[in-house]
């Protein structure tokens, strides 16, 4: 699994991460693993995979779950109920309910104030099923502003080549950099501690 390069996460805080559709889940796990390994408390906003499934995946990958908090916007909408016994998780009625989602994000980020926190948004592409791109753009702008205010980091996952030029341009202006997780073949060779072509390409902020 490809490690997520966090070299710039100190100076730059917000990233749009582009991934091939078939690698979205693997990249999610890779990012979480790297972030928790670096001591980050991660808030995962999920609209694609139910939190219960992600929790099982993270456990199977040996990720420390105590450092992961979920905001699950799909389980309640798809199942009509909330599974019992879910801890460190907030459920939102629907992925299109941006008000509740915004409130949940604000409240969770407030509880993490003073800690090394990072928000992982999985994913913009799935959100596009439920809300128009203009609303997505405004919502991501809201989240990025919130993250900057509370001095937290943020990673926004999206399927590569899946965002139209206008939306991509807008999102690019909200973040500090864009990372293409699957362009490692085109990436420059790493001089130390890595093989040629390994690791994602980072650009700021142009693709």
């Amino acid at each position, binding site marked *: 699994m490809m490690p997520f390069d966090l070299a710039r996460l100190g100076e730059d805080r917000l990233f749009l991460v582009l991934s091939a559709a078939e690698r979205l889940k693997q990249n999610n796990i890779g990012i979480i693993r790297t972030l928790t390994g670096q001591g980050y408390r991660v808030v995962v906003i999920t609209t694609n995979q139910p939190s219960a499934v992600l929790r099982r995946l993270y456990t199977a990958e040996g990720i420390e779950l105590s450092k992961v908090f979920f905001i699950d916007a799909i389980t309640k909408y798809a199942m009509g109920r909330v599974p019992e016994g879910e801890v460190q998780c907030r459920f939102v009625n629907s992925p299109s309910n941006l008000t509740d989602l915004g409130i949940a994000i604000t409240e969770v980020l407030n509880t993490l104030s003073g800690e090394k926190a990072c928000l992982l948004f999985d*994913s913009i592409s799935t959100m596009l099923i439920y809300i128009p791109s203009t609303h997505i753009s405004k919502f991501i702008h809201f989240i990025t502003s919130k993250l900057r205010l509370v001095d937290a980091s943020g990673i926004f996952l999206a399927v590569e080549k*899946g965002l139209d030029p206008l939306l991509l341009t807008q999102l690019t202006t909200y973040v500090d950099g864009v990372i293409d997780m699957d362009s490692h073949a085109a990436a420059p060779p790493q001089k130390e501690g890595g093989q040629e072509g390994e690791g994602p390409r980072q650009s700021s902020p142009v693709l």
Partner: protein
Amino acid sequence: MEWDGAVREGLKGKYRVGILALLGGVCIGLEIGVHLFLRTAVGYTHIFYVLLVLSALWYYRRALLVAGGLVVATFATSLVVGDLSWATFLRAAMFLVVTWVVGVISEERDRAKAEVEAQKEAVEKKHFALVGYISEAALRLKNPLEVLRDNLVSIRSQLDNSPDIGELKIMLSVQVTHLEQVLENFRALNKEIVEEREEIPQAYREFLTR
């Protein structure tokens, strides 16, 4: 851009008034100089038509006021000179008729031109709206379907191992929910296209929005 256009129109209006005032001055000067002093009414009135045609082109039937002014000036000088005749009346009538005809034709031409422009603008607006909607729909159909396909592939691969049935049910429910919304988005796209394109037959309208 709009401001630029307004300024340009304002300047154009001022230039037009200036040109007409100048031509008006020339016409009155000719009326006084040639008709009143040289005592001849031949030849110089052709210049009047430049003023009248330009007035009618720019101000349509309102140019009849200019024509009326020239008629009054012609009658006045004719009365002073004493050459008022059927030719004076004919000349005055020609001023009014030519001005009226040019004014009506200009007005109609500009109205038709404005109508064509408005129609063109409306069609372009609709076209851009349609392109925007199709682009948005592609964004909300193609990508999500790719994600769904990979989610389903992942579920299938879980079946090869010892699957947690409860978890698979949840996963499948999520995919069904995603698919329902994608279908709804697709219906919305069809509806939008049907409403946009009036040439689509009724039977196809019903089929597309079903």
